[in-house]
């Protein structure tokens, strides 16, 4: 079972879904703080849900306030970097570049891709975490 988890985890690394940063987070976890990674991930998902919602609303309105969108993305990129969600971080960077040149179409396209990557990361997170002690049942 351990080996299966290790293989899955390796595949996630190879595909670029996890990165060194996630390993750093795991290294900060110990017996005295066994839920650290989960706690940070929970904060991340709260943050990202809020940001995705804000951006969705802004884009639906049709008014492209690029500087506001860029500001949301800056936050999103920051927390994705800290949690080790590298593909999400890449999409954030791309989105910000479209903002910089005022390319609305590019922003929309990239945002769809970003949401996909984010959802994948959220699903895969459960698999990546299994070796870290007993996992609690959560309906996310």
């Amino acid at each position: 079972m351990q080996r299966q988890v290790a293989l899955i985890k390796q595949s996630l690394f190879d595909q670029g879904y996890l990165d060194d940063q996630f390993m750093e987070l795991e290294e900060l976890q110990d017996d005295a703080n066994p839920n650290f990674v989960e706690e940070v991930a929970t904060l991340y998902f709260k943050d990202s849900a809020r940001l995705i919602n804000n951006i969705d609303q802004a884009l639906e309105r049709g008014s492209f306030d690029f500087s506001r969108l860029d500001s949301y993305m800056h936050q999103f990129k920051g927390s994705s970097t800290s949690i080790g969600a590298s593909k999400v971080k890449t999409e954030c960077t791309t989105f910000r570049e479209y903002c910089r040149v005022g390319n609305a179409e590019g922003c929309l396209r990239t945002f769809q891709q970003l949401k996909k990557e984010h959802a994948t990361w959220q699903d895969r997170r459960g698999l990546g975490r299994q070796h870290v002690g007993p996992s609690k049942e959560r309906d996310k």
Partner: protein
Amino acid sequence: MAEVLLPRKMEIAKDPSKFGSPHLLHVLAVDDSHVDRKFIERLLRVSSCKVTVVDSATRALQYLGLDVKDKSVGFEDLKVNLIMTDYSMPGMTGYELLKKIKESSAFRDIPVVVMSSENILPRIDRCLEEGAEDFLLKPVKLSDVRRLRDSLMKVEDLSFTKSVKKRELETENVYSLDSSVHSQLKRAKI
């Protein structure tokens, strides 16, 4: 009573990174991102630092007592050894916070480290010119924090040693009880 002092001082001599509670580095961390606050707090605790975390530059100034207009004095009894601040924050930026701290008489000597996810050279230069101790790229690594801690501990250790020596000289001929206490301190230093 005197015997209890000795083993504790011996521990400090053996492992300089583990100071007894009066000598833990107290770090004030400032970041508007919840994820990053959690992360930096953990990095600092793992590095045996005492941590206070706030979510904005304004709150940092409040904590230091510098928020009142025209007040450059602040809470002088507050012992903060290091301030680590994010650069990009809504409202007051980390750069502006850095300037305010360096303008205050009470806190200008506290090292301020600026953190940013963006590697922008003019930004880094500006911060260093304004007196930042260091500029760290996010995500901050445990090795960054340890390096900071170690260099600050050396400074604190030096000033602690100086103040111990000073106390020894001052109390040498005053009380016999004190001289037995300070002679234990002498033995512990080795």
